[in-house]
């Protein structure tokens, strides 16, 4: 008995020993900086000891700062010795004047213990997960190992994604939902890939088993509507709009960029290429027209034409927007904070913001009202002429000179804008746009490199003949470089005048004299000056014809698109750090560089936007692929694996499935070679995607946002899809692609901008029924029903639309004439039914792709009967209700009411 007891004690003792040894050795006992410590620091310490403030000379933002000496002499953290570390001592102080966090309640015992342990364990600094490269992830085979490999779970798994999802479900004691019904799945898939419900033949082929699910996926991915649907998503990122924004919000022809996006998506341009062309297409060797069009991505920044605004201020604002947008779009990083101070929570230093800005600060655009530089689009005949000029100069002069002339015809750069002129006498920058000198007027155009040109080019307008213009070197006494007469012009003209060759950087002193005009009149309004290399072969026969043709083309009216063009070396701007983010307070000059905490720079890359874009799509960049897969995932599930789509920094929502995120990111880069279509296909082929979206109380209460994916996605359709779907089911939708934006009907009096920048001219014919992506978007006054359904005004980049549910949305789909017209056309289709029941059945099926239940049928039939007797009683209401058609009867009007109700059902407005 005694022996037994002692054995028993020994046994217990051994168990205790094992447990304590195990608990010492088990990996979870090592405190992890990113998971355990950083959240405590961010929450309690960083406001005073971080990017903005460094109270007591102590900061916890960067490793080197945390271990540096503070104002009290020594370091606050002594690795390995918590007891001696002021960082820990101060947490435990009883005196509130000494205790940290200062004037706040004491940290919890658990937090203090964790911090103590961390310091004792050596205070190892760590990188936030998003700043380390995704590591190769093994696909978990949870279903086999966990004993619940029931038939259901086996049936659930369709590809590797499902293993990740299933493991988390199992860990939470959950099971996947059964697959959605075929008809529900077909609609979901088609809406997700093409933004439209499936057409009858595809729907039937799939639901009757004629084609497989994968066949349907492939078919939908190959349709043009795929590019149109996903373009809306990308255009939110690109802040694409048809106007310039700000006060005047004038029109701007940007649609060729929108078409470029649609085509690139449909051609499945690899995302790395897609990135490089948009950020740096102009810097690629001999860029194609398409590559130049792609650069309009960053010309979607706003342009301020308000009177009295300074172009330079808004040029800088555009550059800042480009830095912020690039980092938000590709890096899930809100770099904007770093403009004024080092990032509060993430490892980006104030100075690094300006290093990034230096990449973007050398483009030709300068917030001018003409939006230069503009890419010009010539007719076929004109283009032949352009090519002929190019060939002639190349042959008679050289390729380099030919290229300069070719580029000048293509986008008229480099130029010197009027707003650069200063020190006016009898003159001014008229309307903040044009250099305007009165009689005996003068001004300076500083720092001009004429590159030895023998002509000066001027774009100007004048209503006055006989102004003598004299251009001197540097000042009023300087050498005359050019002297010529300007006369009345037809609108704005580009003319050239002989100019004395000089290679120096000079100030142009410009004088104008015309004593026949009143002293208050301007002699002319000059937009810009330009210099092109001399054509020494100018004496050759044939040159004068080339020259005529060149000037004629320059002065021809062509469609245009604002693009990005890099400054030539002699026009390069230095980038300076702005003190506290104020653009007028410039301090140190900085060079282009990427943040230290991210991937290293490869010296083979040029230090410009091209290099930067290569850095972004380098496989060493930890954020680009993760960002893209997270956002595509969100488009499909309504929620990202990292829910805060715009931010993956240390303040972001932790990923719900970190390994899946990395697995998708690596697969996207390495196996799919950046193919977005392949990524979409992976996601929609999964069993996770194919689940039923039916909810229940237990599931909802446990996981209201469906972050564990125990059910399929169920989300209200986006603004574009709500319109397009209504047009599609009513048979009105136009499939016409591309071209200028259209203006479908909208209520009167919506456009009321301060200075009339245009009118809403209602489109006619099929342009009334184009897909939403082609609708004209005026930033200060977007298409009202899209705004109501949460589409933005595209003034700044939007990576996530919030989905709301408001009464104004109900008013749109109930009362907007567009939706009444679609209801009427659906009703016409319904009227083909042999009786009312069949009509309603057909209409419901057409709209939501499901058979109507008797209960629902009865509800709609009652509505039909009420409407019918109402219209029979008051037949004049029929004509009022359906004004766009003659010969409508009470039956059709009543069916229209029913169709309108169907098109307002939750199941119609929602992807189930």
């Amino acid at each position: 008995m005694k022996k037994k007891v002692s054995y028993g004690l020994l046994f217990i003792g051994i168990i205790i020993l094992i447990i304590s040894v195990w608990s010492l050795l088990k990996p979870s006992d090592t405190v992890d900086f990113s998971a355990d410590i950083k959240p405590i620091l961010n929450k309690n310490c960083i406001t005073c000891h971080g990017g903005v403030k460094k109270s007591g000379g102590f900061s916890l933002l960067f490793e080197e700062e945390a271990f540096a000496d503070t104002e009290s002499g020594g370091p606050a953290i002594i690795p390995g010795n918590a007891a001696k570390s002021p960082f820990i001592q101060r947490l435990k102080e009883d005196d509130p004047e000494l205790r940290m966090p200062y004037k706040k309640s004491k940290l919890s015992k658990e937090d203090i213990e964790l911090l103590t342990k961390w310091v004792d364990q050596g205070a190892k600094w760590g990188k936030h997960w998003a700043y380390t490269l995704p590591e190769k992830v093994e696909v978990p085979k949870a279903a086999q190992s966990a004993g619940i490999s029931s038939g259901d779970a086996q049936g659930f798994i369709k590809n590797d994604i499902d293993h990740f999802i299933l493991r988390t479900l199992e860990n939470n004691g959950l099971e996947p939902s059964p697959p959605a019904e075929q008809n529900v799945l077909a609609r979901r898939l088609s809406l997700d890939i093409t933004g439209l419900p499936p057409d009858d033949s595809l729907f039937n082929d799939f639901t009757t088993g004629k084609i497989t699910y994968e066949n349907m996926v492939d078919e939908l991915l190959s349709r043009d509507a795929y590019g149109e649907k996903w373009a809306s998503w990308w255009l939110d990122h690109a802040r694409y709009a048809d106007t310039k924004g700000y006060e005047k919000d004038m029109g701007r022809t940007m649609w060729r960029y929108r078409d470029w996006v649609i085509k690139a998506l449909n051609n499945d341009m690899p995302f790395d290429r897609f990135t490089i062309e948009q950020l740096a297409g102009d810097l690629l060797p001999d860029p194609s027209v398409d590559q130049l069009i792609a650069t309009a991505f960053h010309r979607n920044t706003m342009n301020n034409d308000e009177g009295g605004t300074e172009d330079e201020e808004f040029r800088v604002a555009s550059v800042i927007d480009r830095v912020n947008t690039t980092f938000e779009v590709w890096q899930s990083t809100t770099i904007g904070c770093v403009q004024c101070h080092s990032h509060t929570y993430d490892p980006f230093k104030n100075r690094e913001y300006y290093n990034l800005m230096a990449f973007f600060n050398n483009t030709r655009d300068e917030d001018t009202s003409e939006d230069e530089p503009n890419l010009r689009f010539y007719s076929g005949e004109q283009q032949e002429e352009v090519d002929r000029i190019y060939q002639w100069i190349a042959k008679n002069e050289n390729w380099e000179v030919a290229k300069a002339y070719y580029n000048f015809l293509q986008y008229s750069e480099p130029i010197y804008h009027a707003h650069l002129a200063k020190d006016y006498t009898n003159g001014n920058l008229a309307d903040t746009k044009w250099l305007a000198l009165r009689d005996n007027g003068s001004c300076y155009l500083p720092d001009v490199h004429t590159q030895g040109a023998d002509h000066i080019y001027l774009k100007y307008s004048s209503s006055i003949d006989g102004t003598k213009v004299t251009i001197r070197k540097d000042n009023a006494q300087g050498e005359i470089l050019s002297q010529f007469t300007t006369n009345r012009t037809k609108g704005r003209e580009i003319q050239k005048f002989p100019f004395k060759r000089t290679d120096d950087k000079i100030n142009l002193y410009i004088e104008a004299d015309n004593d026949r005009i009143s002293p208050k009149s301007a002699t002319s309004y000059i937009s810009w000056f330009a210099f092109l290399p001399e054509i020494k072969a100018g004496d050759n026969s044939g040159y004068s014809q080339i020259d005529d043709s060149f000037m004629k083309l320059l002065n021809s009216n062509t469609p245009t698109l604002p693009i990005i063009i890099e400054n030539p070396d002699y026009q390069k701007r230095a980038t300076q750090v702005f003190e506290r983010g104020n653009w007028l307070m410039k301090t140190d000059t900085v060079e282009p560089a990427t943040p230290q905490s991210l991937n290293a720079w490869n010296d083979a890359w040029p230090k410009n936007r091209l290099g930067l874009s290569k850095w972004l799509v380098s496989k060493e960049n930890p954020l680009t692929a993760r960002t893209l897969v997270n956002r595509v995932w969100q488009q499909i599930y309504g929620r990202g694996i990292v829910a805060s789509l715009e931010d993956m920094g240390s303040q972001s929502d932790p990923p719900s499935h970190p390994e899946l995120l990395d697995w998708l990111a690596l697969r996207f880069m390495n196996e799919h070679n950046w193919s977005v279509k392949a990524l979409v296909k992976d996601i929609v082929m999964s069993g996770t995607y194919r689940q039923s979206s039916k909810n229940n109380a237990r599931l909802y209460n446990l996981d209201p946002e469906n972050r564990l994916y125990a059910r399929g996605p169920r989300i209200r359709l986006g603004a574009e899809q709500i319109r397009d779907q209504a047009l599609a089911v009513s048979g009105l939708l136009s499939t016409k692609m591309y071209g200028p934006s259209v203006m479908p009907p909208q209520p009167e009096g919506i456009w009321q901008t301060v200075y009339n920048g245009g009118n809403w001219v209602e489109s006619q014919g099929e342009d009334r029924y184009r897909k939403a992506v082609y609708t004209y978007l005026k930033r200060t006054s977007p298409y009202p029903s899209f705004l109501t359904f949460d589409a933005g005004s595209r003034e700044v980049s939007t990576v996530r639309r919030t989905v709301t549910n408001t009464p104004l949305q109900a008013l749109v789909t109930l009362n907007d004439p567009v939706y009444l017209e679609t209801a009427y056309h659906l009703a016409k289709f319904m009227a083909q039914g042999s009786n009312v029941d069949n009509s309603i059945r057909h209409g419901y099926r057409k709209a939501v792709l499901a058979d109507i239940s008797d209960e629902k049928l009865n509800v709609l039939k009652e509505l039909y009967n009420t409407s019918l007797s109402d219209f029979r009683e008051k037949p004049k209401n029929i004509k009022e209700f359906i004004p766009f058609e003659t010969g409508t009867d009470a039956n059709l009007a009543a069916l229209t009411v029913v169709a309108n109700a169907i098109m307002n059902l939750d199941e119609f407005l929602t992807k189930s």
Partner: protein
Amino acid sequence: MNSLDRLIKEKLQREIQARTRRHFIKDCVAGMGGLAMGSFFMSCNSFLGNNEKGKIALTERDVNPLASMAPPFPAKVKSVIYLHMAGAPSQLEMFDYKPALQKLDGQVTPQSMLEGKKFAFIRGTPKLLGPQAEFKQHGESGNWVSNFLPHFSKVVDEVAFLKAVNTDQFNHGPAQLFMHTGSPRLGRPSIGSWVTYGLGSENQNLPGFVVLTSGGKTPDAGKSVWGSGFLPSVYQGVQCRSKGDPVLYIDDPKGIARNLKKSTIDAINNINKKEFDEYSDPEILARINQYEMAYRMQTAVPEVMNINNEPEHIKEMYGVRPGKESFANNCLLARKLVEDGVRFVQLFDWGWDSHGTGHDTAIDLGLRNKCTEIDRPMSALLLDLKQRGLLDETLVVWGGEFGRTPMQENREGQEMAYKGRDHHGDAFTMWMAGGGIKKGASWGITDEIGFSALEGQVSVHDVHATMMHLLGFDHEQFTFDFQGRPFRLTDVEGHVIHEILA
């Protein structure tokens, strides 16, 4: 912590956040109107009955994002009427009396004043321009008001002036954005959105945040001045118009009688309820609720927007012009809206940019007309609110996006035919009235020509902090997480202006 624990912890946090507004599904009908809800009751109950695992836990805001909420601190006011004079009215002809400027009229501005200053249109060396109005002290407070505002002179004891408001923006668009969103760049929510997000609406038949414009134009900065920025768009301002539908698509299509619309919505909600039975997605409940509200709004909005039924003496008092778009109509509407429980009413009146480029923008002509247009209505608004006992629970704010220069504008360096003043943000006047405001107060003093603040300078952020304070918020605590950090209306600045608080 495994993810189940985390979920449970988060759920608990959500519940705590929801405080007393937590409702179980059986209560969901309480937030909904009485339309065709008989069967819905059954649905709620049967849902509960059929599901032994429990009930769906929802906050009232899950089904109604505009549900009214109490502020964290005791509030002085329940609603706000903000009168914005877009274009920037001249404080020097209205409230900031500068006799010394009169003496300096026509003199060249000293260089020392111009150094380091940027102007939108003034170039070279402008001349000073004396006040173009006559000033007198009024009321017991003895505050100065010009003869451009004879009616307002009589209610001057109701308001508190801020005479030295400062903004660093001197172009309309950015300055209006700054004034209404706390940032001169786009993307931030407007004050009205913040307030509606924080407090919801008292009236579930009307939008919580209503915008009324007059002067024929929308503000220079566009609709972003009442946008919701990163807040959900349900909190953005709803523009109610004088012409066409008062709210877009609020009118039933022609030929559709009210009862038919009711039948339609009944049918939609009835089917949606069946959909909810099948999917248990609370968004469906929210949609049912929104369709109910839409139906009620269709009656309530045209009703509240109709001023014809107001008694003659009230119409007379405001000087309304029924059927036209006018500031007077909008002031009367503002009263009706706050009376009905609308949280934030934003008025924009266009035409205050008195550059002197023509008759309408001349300081002595056009500006005087603009003053006449607003004088009676805004005074009537204060009196009307007062006589209804509403002034104590409403905050009325008046101002532009900046002020104007004591110098006469010399556009493009030339003398101009009319007298005008350029944009000027260093010191300008705003006023507030209503609950918690010290009546008859005046805070801030400008120099003898009204160019710079001498004392009591306040920033746009300070104005916002004060408004939030009166509504029961600590502007430093009232935040919304976006892009990985908490954002607030006042960014990292702002102090409550206690000098004008009662």
